[in-house]
């Protein structure tokens, strides 16, 4: 049955507004997606009906809150096909999930001479935590290069084979690049890492709400994602880790909820996931995240992926002959996720974003938390249009028309 995308869009109240006198065209979903009414309703309902602290509570509200929180964990496990809900740790988001591994796993396992391998297309949140981790342990950080002057070739798979030596203890990489739109071959990357005994961490921030993510099929050891990039609320995310790994890892934050027994000088820890969830968790947002997962699965991630790709292909055609445009990542006709970032010869990204905003179009301009990559590509900043299930080809045509006016305005022709 064909999906009615217009009806889906109507479920996102934020989109039903005008900006600067024009209907809003929201093309910044790679930064954060808008939220459907069911998710907003869930937040309201939790605070109105069920609000209480979780665990250790015996009264009715606390039991309801605990049940809802643990049901959200089970929902998240099903969402990524984790074997056990105890492999789901709720965090503030992708960044905190990665920092958890960099702090906990690295402190127990990383030593001088070891290598942490990442790629040149990582977001700062999958780069800076490893810089800190290797600085603490005396290990070394290495990068898998990207191929091509516009990084159009994705990761250099030959270089990867040279870089994947037995010294590599952890290989952390993104599923989908937030700047390039490259979709990495995660299962293959995990399989190659496994051959040298390296663990793998997948940054799924850009893929989780867009394409099917199955940790079993991918074969990864850790996977991190945020709720707010998949139609869920801000402030909630997940770290998935294999149970055996998590149970062998030391705590990274300490407090209530994560201890088994506390004595004056010694404390023993609960197993995962509680060990890594010190303090009162973000219950309301975890519950709403589960509702967002229901929403995404009701549309279907295969369908969303196909929709994203169709929009991207349309954008690549619509933007191709804009004078002076340089588009990063895969070339026209090559597979690309739902985003396009570009530089214009005659207009700087900030001027582009200000101009588009006057047309009611929300873009992002800057280095997209990808400074080393931008430097390598010889760019200070780009503009980025990113898509989700509520966007349409008409909106991309509006973007293209706006960009033509921008070029005309700044080139003076």
């Amino acid at each position, binding site marked *: 049955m064909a999906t009615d995308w217009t009806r889906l869009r109507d479920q996102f109240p934020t989109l039903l507004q005008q900006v*600067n006198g024009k209907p809003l065209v929201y093309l910044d979903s790679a930064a954060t997606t808008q939220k459907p009414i069911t998710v907003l309703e869930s937040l309201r309902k939790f605070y109105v009906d069920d609000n209480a602290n979780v665990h250790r509570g015996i009264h009715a509200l606390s039991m309801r809150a605990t049940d809802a929180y643990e049901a959200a964990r089970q929902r998240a496990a099903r969402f990524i096909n984790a074997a056990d809900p105890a492999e789901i740790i709720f965090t503030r988001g992708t960044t905190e999930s990665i920092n958890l591994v960099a702090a906990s796993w690295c402190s127990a396992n990383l030593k001088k001479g070891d290598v942490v391998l990442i790629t040149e297309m990582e977001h700062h949140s999958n780069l800076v935590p490893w810089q800190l981790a290797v600085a603490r342990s005396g290990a070394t950080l290495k990068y898998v290069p990207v191929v091509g002057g516009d990084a159009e070739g994705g990761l250099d798979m030959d270089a990867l084979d040279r870089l994947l030596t037995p010294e590599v203890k952890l290989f952390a990489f993104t599923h989908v690049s937030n700047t390039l739109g490259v979709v990495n071959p995660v299962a293959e990357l995990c399989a190659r890492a496994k051959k040298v005994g390296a663990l793998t961490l997948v940054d799924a921030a850009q893929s989780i709400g867009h394409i099917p993510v199955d940790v079993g099929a991918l074969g990864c050891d850790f996977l991190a994602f945020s709720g707010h990039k998949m139609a869920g609320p801000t402030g909630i995310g997940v770290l998935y880790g294999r149970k055996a790994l998590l149970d062998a890892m030391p705590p990274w934050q300490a407090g209530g909820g994560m201890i088994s027994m506390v004595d004056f000088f010694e404390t023993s820890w609960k197993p995962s996931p509680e060990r890594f969830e010190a303090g009162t968790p973000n219950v309301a947002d975890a519950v709403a995240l589960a509702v967002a997962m229901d929403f995404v699965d009701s549309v279907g991630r295969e369908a969303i992926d196909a929709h994203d790709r169709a929009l991207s292909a349309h954008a690549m055609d619509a933007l191709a002959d804009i004078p002076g445009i340089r588009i990063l990542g895969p070339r026209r006709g090559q597979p690309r996720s739902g985003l396009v970032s570009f530089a214009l010869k005659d*207009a*700087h*990204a*900030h*001027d582009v974003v*200000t*101009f588009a905003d*006057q047309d009611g179009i929300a873009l992002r*301009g*800057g*280095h997209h938390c990808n*400074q080393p990559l*931008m430097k390598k590509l010889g760019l*200070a*900043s780009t503009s980025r249009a990113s898509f989700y299930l509520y966007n349409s080809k008409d909106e991309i045509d509006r973007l293209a028309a706006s960009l033509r006016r921008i070029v005309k*305005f*700044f080139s*003076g022709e």
Partner: protein
Amino acid sequence: MSDLTDLYQQVILDHNRRPRNRGKLPTANRVARGENPTCGDQCSVYVRLDGDRIAEITFDGSGCAISQASASLMTTQLKGRTAAEAEELFKTFHHIVTSGEAPEEISDIAAFAGVHAFPARIKCATLGWHAALNALHGDPAPVHTE
């Protein structure tokens, strides 16, 4: 588009397309760099101070039309002035970009009055000025505007 032509006045577009006094100044005795880490804009200002007077001033860097045009126009306004006069002119400029009001006797830099309607862009307009003042103060640390 009336708002945008307020922001991007002809004099700004002109300075963006044909920046004045752009490039390093080999004879500079004062240099400072301004950067805006969130957007990657950067601007270095080179000054040759002769006593208390700005004998020559140039800039280079990269960034949006507002930041580049502002730095370019600034160099044309500061040449020949004393450091104290430069400070005063910056106060006027800052008032213009934050309030949208320009004193009658001010001409060229009044073109930046439209910036006040775009608060996110005020830091772009002031980047070069902050670098210039740091150069005049002899402070070599990069100045950040955010």
